[in-house]
């Protein structure tokens, strides 16, 4: 079934405004990509690669210096479509403490809805629904400061999905969380996609998170370097390393063994696949 293209970037370039009269460098340099409805896409790159700048083009926080971005057919440069675009594409940022405005969890989730003028009865329903979707309903009457980082980030996500967006763009949502918080947030994000059909764009520099997505776009120096399935992307061990990125240890070990002339399949990504591949070398594969 051909999927409907939801976000389309056509040959976009972007330079931040210059204040000192110098010609500013291009942060994005001729990027073209599209994201289809229902996809979960990771955008991977190191600091300064342009990945956050790209993400900000997806809901009209930035508009391209040249080229064009459309969201659900609407040009992000068109001012009269701004509110519609931002309702369809919600953003979640890195630091949970910077995104929470209210002193009670459920009031925080209701904040955007109040601003949008949603009737009170519907606000109640949407807030409850959003909090249940991120698994924070039991905490609805807590103060945000009593929550862990991962819980706060899930409240921030609830605040976005209460607006019923079609797509959520998350800019390094787990960078400030501990391993437990990271897991909570990642499983929430996957659930949004798998169970509720929300299109997800995940900006990250964690390889294991990118490996959980259906598609990985690697960006460096403002250009798209790779755009493929995680399996294909992580088999490019040398290329990724040259661009300052890591690969999971399982992929790295199999790559190294293959370079040593051993018969190890390409595209090994997970721990289990790696164990299988090495066990097979010793004649102890799954079939043995």
């Amino acid at each position, binding site marked *: 079934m051909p999927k409907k293209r939801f976000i389309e970037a056509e040959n976009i370039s972007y330079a931040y405004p210059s204040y000192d009269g110098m010609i500013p460098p291009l942060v994005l340099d001729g990027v073209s990509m599209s994201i289809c409805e229902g996809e979960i896409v990771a955008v991977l790159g*190191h*600091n*300064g690669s342009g990945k956050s700048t790209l993400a900000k083009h997806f809901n009209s926080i930035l508009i391209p210096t040249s080229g064009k971005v459309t969201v659900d057919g609407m040009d992000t440069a068109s001012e009269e479509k701004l509110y519609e675009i931002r309702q369809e594409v919600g953003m979640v940022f*890195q630091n949970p403490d910077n995104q929470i405005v209210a002193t009670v969890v459920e009031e925080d989730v209701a904040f955007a809805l109040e601003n949008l003028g949603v009737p009170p009865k519907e606000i109640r329903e949407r807030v409850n629904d959003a909090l249940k979707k991120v698994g924070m309903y039991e905490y609805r009457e807590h103060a945000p400061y009593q929550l*862990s*980082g991962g819980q706060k980030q899930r409240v921030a996500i609830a605040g976005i999905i209460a607006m019923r967006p079609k797509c959520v763009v998350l800019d*390094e949502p787990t*960078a*400030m969380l*501990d*391993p*437990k*918080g990271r897991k909570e947030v990642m499983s929430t994000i996957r659930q949004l996609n798998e169970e509720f059909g929300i299109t997800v764009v995940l900006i990250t*520099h964690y390889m294991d998170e990118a490996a959980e997505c259906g598609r990985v776009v690697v960006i460096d120096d403002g250009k798209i370097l790779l755009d493929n399935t995680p399996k294909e992307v992580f088999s490019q061990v040398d290329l990724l390393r040259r661009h*300052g*990125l*890591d690969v*999971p*240890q*399982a992929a*790295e*070990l199999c790559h*190294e*063994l293959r370079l*040593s002339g*051993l018969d190890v399949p390409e595209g090994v990504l997970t*721990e*289990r696949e*790696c*164990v299988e591949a*090495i*066990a097979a*070398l*010793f*004649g*102890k594969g799954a079939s043995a």
Partner: protein
Amino acid sequence: MSEIIRTEHLSYVYSAGTPFENAALDDINISVEEGTFLGLIGHTGSGKSTLIQHLNGLLKPDSGKVYIGGEDIWADPKKIRRFRFKVGLVFQYPEYQLFEETVRKDISFGPRNMGLSEEEIAGRVLEAAELVGLPENYLDKSPFELSGGEKRRAAIAGVLAMRPEVLILDEPTAGLDPRGREHILGEIAEYHDRYGATIILVSHSMEDVARFADHVLIMDHGHAAMYGTTREIFRRVGELTEMGLEVPQISRIFAGLAARGIPVPESVLTVGEAKEAVLRLLREGGGV
């Protein structure tokens, strides 16, 4: 080698006498040799941060003793400041603590408080900046002109300039991308090698701890749950997993291979070691 840090029956309770009473540290007895590179691991709330704040006297034990270089740091509370120079503490997100007009003044703050001569201070600032890879022309910039990663390195330089015998860092790589992480970890290793300093690295990244630390201390619910060489600790995959901690992916892969009856060494810490181990086993006939 001589002992640099010792704790005896160290205990600490937060909010004693209130309903929120919480034993953050419970009878901690550890001894750390001079020149050790110690990885400190545990969940959020396990007592890691409380422990490190005891080692330079930011917190005073409710019971038990802390010795630095054989001296009870609370023997004379008026002299506690000496230990703050001996034991340098870099907090999480130290970039938020920069406060001076220029990077140079900020790095000078610690050495100046130590009462060093202006000449000595100037030399130490240059050396600390060099250690963290900040070019000299950055020293007269405002800290606000630096990027996030550079700010963090400037903040670490401020602690290194005091040339502490023990350097403690609370998640110094949190939120950084792989390249930034390598930078900071390499600088810490350089400080360790150049001055024979003792390092305590608090980290959630088992891969980083496996690569850099020679000893590991695991905190769990206020207890010192495990303490030993990095190899001994990461061999205990089952116990660590039960505590909800992760072991490096490479250690899990090797545990999986061992479970298949392949005679791999139990304690492998890096991808390089893993590759060598597999190649060696295959050469020796694979034990099949």
